[in-house]
Structure formats: structure tokens, C-alpha cells
């Protein structure tokens, strides 16, 4: 479903000039508009939400900067140049250097890669679990009670304390099994994924329950469509919009959770930068070099803000009651 989103975001720049034309078409009193596909309609609504478009562009810029930036800015983030330590912003080091003389720009990009990857992978896990449980609970009446009780149980768990406990307990054994970085990555992503699928499951279940009673499902069933096929072809495409919205919110949530854990000292190992870890390391030098705290914090906040705006716009665009207003 991220594939679904990408063509839309990639098209953003070239179609930049279209919205005014679209707006005229929409508001004009012409009942004989040519029929437009649903996704064009959604796109037209999305493009009118200025915050969402800005959020999308900012998010894209951050993504490109973090993943393609290291090919342009080729300083190794772990290269220690002790003579150039604690430098302020300069041409050689636009974001300055840290207490070991490592280039902050390179570290910010490396940290951003980890934070973004954790956010995206954890979101995918949560989305997969949430959709699976939501669809199964909504579709099969027998499993509904059990699965929804389980969802309620998970919602009643204190999540941040449990995450802390999980990280504390399984950090060492997973680090041993997969190496410190991969081990912690797996731990983080699974821990965040299995503690944040519940809202998606609830929304999807509600939608599936309503869809199941619709005529096209009855029609599909009456021509002998099997359950698996029915879910894949008729139910899932119709619940894609709540899933897309919770995907964006899921990324934001996962990035914040990862950085909170790193900030509490229970995240990735110290020599492995993430935005949360960089912020945590910067707190000790807050009085002399406030930029070391502000830069990673700004990166986290900007990413989350842009993703939240994106989600807001998507929600409005995908909601047929709001569309065209």
C-alpha cells in the first residue's frame, strides 16, 4: 500500500500547476462534468489541502536528504577527528562537529536513515497486524469476540513502560544473536509494531462489518466466490483509505517512540546514531552548544509534523463526505 502512495507523491512537482484548473472545474456550476475516476477526485481534494501538500513536500525532501544525501556529503559519520572537536557551523562542517570531532551533518543523515527505517518498517508491521486482525474479526463472526477482546486487552496495556521493559529484557540476547545494530533494529521494530496495531484493527473491523452487508459482497458470494478471494478482491480495496491514513500516523508514532526510547538511553548503542540518540547525547552539552540538541529535535519534529499534515490531508481527501466541499 505504500506503492499506492508513491506515484501520487512523485507526481507532486510536475502537476503543481494543475490545482487552480481543478478548482475551477469543481466550483463551476457545470453539471455536465466529464466523469472522473475516484483517485483523480481524491487527488484533486488532496491538492487543495495546502498543509497536506506542504507536509508531503517536506517529508519527501527529508527522505531524499537522508537517503541520497550521504552520496553527496561523503564524510564518514563515524570518522573521529579529535582536533576538530566541538566546532560551530562552518563551511567544512555545516552543522558543526561533536565532542569527538565527528561531522554532525553526516551523523544527522545517518541517524535519519535509522529513524526513518524504524518508522517505516514498524508502521508496516503494525499495519499488517492491524489489517489482518481487523479483517478477520470483521469478516468471520466467530472470531470477532475473541479478537476484539484481545485488542481491548492490548489497549489496556501501559505501552511505554512495557516497551521500556521489553527493550531492557531482550536487548542483550538479540544483540548477541544478530549483532548489536541489527539486533536492536529487529527488537525496536517488532516492539513498536506489536504495540501499535490496535487502532488500525478497530477501524478496519468497523469498515469490514459495514462492507460485509453490502450488495456487491452478496453478489460476489452468490456467484461462488471463496472467502479468501472475496476478501482480497472486494473487501480490502474498500478499506484502503483508513489503512492509508493510519499508515501515515503510524510512521509518526513509530519515529516518536523510537526517539523516546533512545532518549531514555534504552535505544540503539551509543556509536550508532539515530535522531533520538543524537538529541540524548547533545543534552550534556546543551549549555555550550545548544544547536546539538536543537538540530536533531528539529529533524524529528519536522518529520512528524509533515507526516501528520500529510495524514490530515489524506483523511480529508479520502473521506467522501468532505470531498468536494
Amino acid at each position, binding site marked *: 500500500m505504500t506503492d499506492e502512495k508513491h506515484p501520487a507523491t512523485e507526481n507532486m512537482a510536475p502537476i503543481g500547476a494543475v490545482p487552480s484548473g481543478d478548482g475551477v472545474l469543481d466550483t463551476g456550476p457545470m453539471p455536465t462534468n466529464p466523469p472522473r475516476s475516484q483517485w483523480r477526485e481524491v487527488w484533486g481534494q488532496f491538492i487543495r489541502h495546502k498543509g497536506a501538500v506542504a507536509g508531503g513536500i517536506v517529508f519527501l525532501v527529508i527522505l531524499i536528504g537522508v537517503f541520497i544525501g550521504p552520496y553527496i556529503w561523503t564524510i564518514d559519520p563515524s570518522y573521529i577527528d579529535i582536533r576538530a572537536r566541538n566546532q560551530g557551523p562552518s563551511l567544512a562542517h555545516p552543522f558543526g562537529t561533536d565532542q569527538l570531532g565527528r561531522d554532525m551533518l553526516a551523523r544527522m543523515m545517518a541517524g535519519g536513515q535509522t529513524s526513518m527505517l524504524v518508522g517505516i518498517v514498524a508502521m508496516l508491521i503494525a499495519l499488517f497486524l492491524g489489517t489482518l486482525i481487523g479483517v478477520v474479526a470483521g469478516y468471520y463472526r466467530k472470531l470477532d469476540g475473541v479478537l476484539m477482546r484481545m485488542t481491548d486487552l492490548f489497549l489496556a496495556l501501559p505501552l511505554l513502560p512495557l516497551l521500556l521493559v521489553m527493550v531492557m529484557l531482550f536487548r*542483550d540476547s538479540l544483540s548477541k544473536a544478530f549483532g548489536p545494530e541489527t539486533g536492536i533494529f529487529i527488537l525496536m521494530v517488532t516492539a513498536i509494531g506489536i504495540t501499535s496495531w490496535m487502532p488500525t484493527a478497530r477501524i478496519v473491523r468497523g469498515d469490514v462489518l459495514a462492507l460485509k452487508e453490502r450488495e456487491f459482497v452478496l453478489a460476489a458470494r452468490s456467484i461462488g466466490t471463496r472467502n479468501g478471494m472475496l476478501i482480497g478482491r472486494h473487501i480490502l480495496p474498500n478499506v484502503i483509505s483508513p489503512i492509508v491514513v493510519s499508515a501515515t500516523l503510524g510512521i509518526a508514532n513509530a519515529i516518536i517512540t523510537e526517539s523516546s526510547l533512545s532518549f*531514555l538511553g534504552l535505544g540503539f548503542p551509543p556509536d550508532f546514531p539515530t535522531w533520538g540518540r543524537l538529541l540524548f547525547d547533545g543534552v550534556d552539552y546543551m549549555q555550550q552548544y545548544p544547536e546539538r540538541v536543537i538540530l536533531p529535535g528539529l529533524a524529528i519534529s519536522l518529520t512528524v509534523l509533515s507526516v501528520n499534515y500529510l495524514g490530515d490531508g489524506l483523511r480529508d481527501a479520502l473521506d467522501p463526505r468532505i470531498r468536494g466541499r
Partner: protein
Amino acid sequence: MLTYFTRRLLLAIPTLLFIGLVIFLLLDLAPGDPTAQLPLTIPPAVREQIRISLGLGEPLPIRFFKWMYQFFIVEPQVVIDSIFGTSFSAGDARVLSWQTRSPVMDIVWQRIPQTLWVVGTAYVVAIIIALPIGIYSAYRQYSIFDNVGTFITMIGFSVPPFFSGVLVIVIFSVNLGWFPSIYDTTLVVNDWDSFMQQLQQMILPVMVLALQITSQLSRFMRASMLDNLNQDYVRTARAKGLGEKSVVLVHVLRNSMIPVVTVIALGIPQIFGGAIITEQVFKVNGIGQLLITAIQANDVPLVQTLTFIFAILIVLFNLIADVLYGLLDPRIRYD
């Protein structure tokens, strides 16, 4: 309503037991030995005795049962004893912390006032700020006030407390020097000066927490108002000549408050969990900070009990929110 309430209350018991079991198992299955930190010169026999004295000698089901018994039977007795001066709990074993060897609940009771002061004040401040903002921005949807307000709440929503906390410390206590960056819990408020000091040190943590809660609540308030403002009964009220003030502040507001009140109730336990970071940033030695230190020191009974208390709070306030919803909205019938 009453039958619904009793059914939910009865259902909460197995839920809590199950959550307790999950927490217990999660901590118990973890690798790690509480005696690993002790000197290597201690002979194995003594080491075994230490383990038994920590309560690790018995099989797992018995330990779980003992923990539950101590939590639900012994601890309430202790509370009753300390209030009425009776001695029900004399001689009963209590849940002991591995760090200090003192009863866990005693430590928790010591920490609760700090958390309640800071977090509770922040919650009240946030409610007072959020409701008018939400009401006004819904009433003037897409006005400048609404757009600015939405933007600010979006920021408050997106900026994590560990960044906003550090940021306000840099601005207000490092650069401007107005407020202290560390919350001093030993301060005794007994005259005007110490009261002002207490106020000053509370401003930063309360500001950070309130920003977060305000943004969530005002978004809810706005959405709920918007849902109601387009309803037919609003048009009716206007058509029969009621003033705008009474239409919005009486008719619409009362209906919009129903979901908001439940959200406020649901948010209370989350505040305890979310305050972990804020307490850590400002060094408030409240419950959240207690949890972090306990986790770092591998103090299993303390972590178990604290996590379980959070779970109880969540289940309890879920129940309260549902009951409130039923009481406030006559359209909802549970029976």
C-alpha cells in the same frame, strides 16, 4: 445501566489478572540474574540463599499467586491500617523492592505527590486552555484564528516532550535564566517565598505537558463542535430566534462535550505514562522517574508493580469513560 456497570466491573477482574500474568511472565522469562551484580567471592550456597530471600525459590505459579495476593489483599490492608491505626496486615509479607528492600508500595506512595502536582496541574491548565480554543476555532472554521490554532496544535502534537522540554530549558533557564531547569522536590512550601519558588520550578514542566495535552484536547473539541454545528437542531434553534451565544454555548457545547469528557477521562492514565519522559527531562522524582531507575537497576518487583498500577489505571478510566458516556448521552443504552 447498573447491570452494565456491574458486568463491566466483573469483566475487569479477569482482564486485570490476565494483564498481570502477561507482565509477570514477560519479566520472569527475561534472562538475567539478580545476584549477578554481587561480588564473585560469595560462595554458591550463600548465593542460593540470597536468591531464596529475594523470593525466587518457589515455582512460577506460586510466585505469581503470591504477588497477586500481596498486591490485592495485603496492600489494601496496609492502607486501612495506616488510616485507622488498626493492625490487619501485621506479619503479612509485602512486595519488597530488590533495590532498597523496603515495601514497593511505600516507595510508590512517596513518589505520587510529586507526579500528581506536576501532571495534575498540567492537565487542569490544558483543559482550561484547550476548550475555549477548540470551541472558537470550530465556530469560526477556516478563519485566521482557526488556521493559526490548528497549526499550533499540530506543532504541539508533533513535537515530542523530550525535545520541547529541552528546548524550553535552553531558552528559559540557560539563556534567560528565568526558571530553574531542575525540579527540586525537597522544597517545603511554608511561606510566600517558597511558594513562589515552587511556582517557578513548576512552570516549565507544566508548560511542556500542557502544550501536549492542549493540542490533543482542542483538536477533539474542534472536531466535536464541527460535527454538531451542522446538525438540524442548531438550525432549529437559530430559526426560533435564539441568540448566537445561547445556540453555541448552550445547545451545541453541551452536546459536543459528551465525547470530549470521555476523552479527558481516557487521557488521565496516559498522562502517567507520558509523564515518564517529562519527569526525566526536568528531574522530577515522580512515578515515571521511579520506573526508569527501577528498569535500569533490574528491580523486577518494582517494575512489575508499577506497570501493573498503570494497567489498573487504564482499565479503571476506560470503565469510567464508558459509564460517563452512558450517563451523559441518553441516546446510548447499554442494556
